[in-house]
């Protein structure tokens, strides 16, 4: 007890800042904690969690081991109907937690309309809307079919998808090819040029890439992402480096496997002109790693954060397939000329799967180049990343941040820490216009809403109690 009398007093101060200032004046080493009250003050739940701390920790360690040891690669491509588990002719996959036609936001409705026309199920917009509302078409979250999609995230049966495989654990994930910027389906555009592009992607881009991938063998996505983080990407809002690295991998094979020089050039140019071509793959790679960590009993690690433009949904490893949802917030964004916050759709897309896996906003300290684009300073970006270490259980072993002395990115969001410390996951993202078909109107940052995490936390604590009683 009296040991402290023999040592130099060093203080951690939580609460009144003036106490720390007094210590500073006396040259006493002290650190001030920027503390915030927890999201939920529920002593019973906290007590349950504390008494099960050892079990939870072991479960989370297991989950993190799986996330970190996952090794995502591209093994090939295929048609959604043929490769995605549970895909049906009358099924459309969408971003985020479950949502029906009535509750869908503008851009998602637009993308559904476009997809129905692309599939030939509807001849015009009116007919598409009728079919969508009739119940003849089923909707299901990408996440429930080992898939992920940016923004509206619509995957229809005929769409070609990349097949990703987790070399370590054998699970697979699927994602579409990125269409580029401007008037595109994922932002809810459904005009003729959108359908035309999708058709070209199906008829020209897909077979060409299929052959090229076959020629290359597997493509190591983990390696590309790791390199891209050191080249200024965070692989959510900036994918320029990763796209370039993928391009370098594919280009010779595209040429070698093509008889038609013009067509090969068009394929390569399509990738070259789309800085976001890699986005769908960084999402797929993240999905693959997180899916490996699903269904670990007692684990409080978040395995999905996804938005359907109406709601923000969260899933935990330890609570199975249950979604915890709350209203999706509008990002704090910089808008392109002519647009304002009034025009913005609430946050949308599965792309927050990157943050869930320790990339995107969690790795924004790697990406000073986009910091201004999302409205902030380099220091802000570093602080965003540093803050995320507070709510994650591990530092990535492969994805490293040069500026932070190659510290691993904060990985494995722990819902107990999110609620206990009142620090919400940070997401940097594109912003869609609230009306279908207009497209991207800005980019910005946001904190995930508290509600889904609070619900997840309560259910998690409840399950611990019931499991204990058994």
């Amino acid at each position, binding site marked *: 007890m009296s040991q402290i009398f023999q040592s130099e007093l060093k*203080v*951690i101060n939580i609460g009144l800042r003036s106490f720390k200032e007094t210590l500073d004046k006396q*040259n006493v080493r002290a*650190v001030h904690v920027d503390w915030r009250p927890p999201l939920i003050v529920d002593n019973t739940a906290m007590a349950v969690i504390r008494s099960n701390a050892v079990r939870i920790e072991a479960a989370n360690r297991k989950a993190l081991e799986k996330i970190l040891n996952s090794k995502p690669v591209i093994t090939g491509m295929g048609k959604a109907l043929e490769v995605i588990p549970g895909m049906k002719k009358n099924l459309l996959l969408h971003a985020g937690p479950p949502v029906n036609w009535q509750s869908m936001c503008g851009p998602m409705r637009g993308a559904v309309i476009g997809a129905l026309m692309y599939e030939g199920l509807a001849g015009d917009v009116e007919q598409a809307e009728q079919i969508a509302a009739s119940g003849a078409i089923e909707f299901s979250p990408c996440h429930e079919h080992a898939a992920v999609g940016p923004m509206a995230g619509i995957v229809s049966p005929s769409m070609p998808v990349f097949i990703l495989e987790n070399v370590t654990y054998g699970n697979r994930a699927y994602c579409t090819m990125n269409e580029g910027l401007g008037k595109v389906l994922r932002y809810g555009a459904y005009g003729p040029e959108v359908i035309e592009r999708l058709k070209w992607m199906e008829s020209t881009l897909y077979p060409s890439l299929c052959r090229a991938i076959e020629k290359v063998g597997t493509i190591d996505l983990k390696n590309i992402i790791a390199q891209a983080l050191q080249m200024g990407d965070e692989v959510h809002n900036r994918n320029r480096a990763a796209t370039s690295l993928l391009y370098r991998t594919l280009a010779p094979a595209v040429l070698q496997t093509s008889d038609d020089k013009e067509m090969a050039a068009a394929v390569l140019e399509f990738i070259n002109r789309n800085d976001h071509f890699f986005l769908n793959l960084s999402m797929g790679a993240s999905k693959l790693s997180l899916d490996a960590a699903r269904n670990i009993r007692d684990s409080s690690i978040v395995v999905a954060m996804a938005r359907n433009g109406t709601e923000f949904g969260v899933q935990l490893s330890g609570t199975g397939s249950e979604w915890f949802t709350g209203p999706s917030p509008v990002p704090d964004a910089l808008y392109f000329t002519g647009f304002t916050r009034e025009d913005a759709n609430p946050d949308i897309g599965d792309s927050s799967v990157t943050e869930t896996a320790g990339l995107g906003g969690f790795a924004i300290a790697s990406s000073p180049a986009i910091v201004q684009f999302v409205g902030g300073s380099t220091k802000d970006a570093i602080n965003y990343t540093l803050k995320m270490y507070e709510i994650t259980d591990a530092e990535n072993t492969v994805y490293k941040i040069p500026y932070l002395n190659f510290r691993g990115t904060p990985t494995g969001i722990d819902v107990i820490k999110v609620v206990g410390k009142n620090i919400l996951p940070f997401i940097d993202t594109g912003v869609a216009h609230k009306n279908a078909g207009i497209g991207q109107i800005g980019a910005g940052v946001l904190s995930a809403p508290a509600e889904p995490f609070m619900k997840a936390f309560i259910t998690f604590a409840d399950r611990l109690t019931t499991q204990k009683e058994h």
Partner: protein
Amino acid sequence: MNIISFIKRGEYIDSISIMLIAKRVAEIEGVTDSAAVMGTAENKAMLKASGFVTPEILQAGEMDLIVALKLRDGVEPGSITATVRAIFKTAKEQDGEDTLLPQSIESALKTLPDANLAMISVAGRYAGDLAMKSLEQGLHVMLFSDNVSIEEEIELKKFASSRHLFVMGPDCGTAIINGVPLAFANVVDRGNIGVVAASGTGLQEVSCLISNAGCGISQAIGTGGRDVTKEVGGVMFIEGIRALASDPSTHVVLLVSKPPAAEVVKKIVSVANGIQKPIVSVFLDASTALLKDSNIVQASTLEEAALLSVALAKNEDPATVGKLLKKRRSEIARIAKTEAAKLSPKQKYLRALYSGGTFCDEAQLICQADLRDLHSNTPFGSSKKLRDSSRSQGHTIVDLGDDEFTVGKPHPMIDYSTRNKRIITDAEDPETAVLLLDIVLGYGANMSPLDDIIPVIQQMRTITAHQKRYLPVICSVTGTDRDPQNRSAVAAGLQAKGVVVMESNAAASTLAQAIISAKER
């Protein structure tokens, strides 16, 4: 004259930080003149013109920070070096202030891995959880927060005991660990008297009186007032005594508390009987039968306890304290007579307006000897409860730091406004015969007490002069000259306005009571 210089090479320091460094080096004891500038040609010329010439300054480049000092004769340059280094270090840390602060205890421990104390002052409902987390990390805890449930307190203290850690508090306002005043504490000299206190104001008073009497404090451990109740069982009070017993720097142990539960007193006695060091106690209680067979020297006031400790620490005969206090009593009687003579026939009542809770109790105890019909919002001993806490009634001794006055407001030790209003109300009452006040200095307290109290004293004088009355104002000032407010300066400021400043609350209360008694005779 000795000129020394320090060069910090090639490190970017912004201008505000340089100004801060300049201010701090100028404040170093023994420095008569100083400068802190970047080593540009102009700056170097300026330094030369001011008589700062050293080989290092001549060699300094544009990107180097120069700190140049002139030392008073006889000051060892070696003793300054460490201070300047420390200033450089803190300045650099402040330079990085806008980098992210840790948001949890775990991440704070990454920044300061060998931290050993957590100071917690968040709202009570969250404080217990944070305290437990700190203990789990092996940190001692000072829990400033109040409104922590007694169940939580018991759980925390049991757990802490099993880990050989201290939990000071909840509601622990002050402590001095390794010479560092924590939270609301005074800058007192270090010495060989160790204190365990279940009373914050009590701890401040005894530590200041000890320091002002030429001795010092080895450690002062606060336990929070509830520690000595039957429920908590004095866990930390006992641990504190044990720790001081085994601390080689502590020669005298001083125990300060409002009356502890009988069970706790028994435990204290049993632990004390196994300790060779002299032990002094002040439990603000006349019923001391329980302490009779112990080796604990009992004091009836905080002041007496401090003076007894000082005597024991200096190996003097404790009987000298009795003589000293006796002599002071006759002096007080003399002042009382003079003051009482100036009162009008209608002026009958004592009005004591306290910011320190323990002072309010001590004053009641002292005044009860002679004054009947004593009222308080926090009645102690034979006092009666005030009908309305916001209105004085007969002899009134009120604790303005009690919860009923502080909801949503700063404590009256910081913010004088509540008491200032009350001073005027009581001054307007023709029956008020004496105003008794306390002023507590130190870190955390009001930083400019004179600015806040002098105007109201003047206003009060105008009122009483207008009504052709004289109202004596008696005040104790708890503090030291090393406190940021400087006790001597505060006392002098009050005296200049006719306030009678006493060296302790016990002395001030005794005088106030004596004036009333002298008037009654």
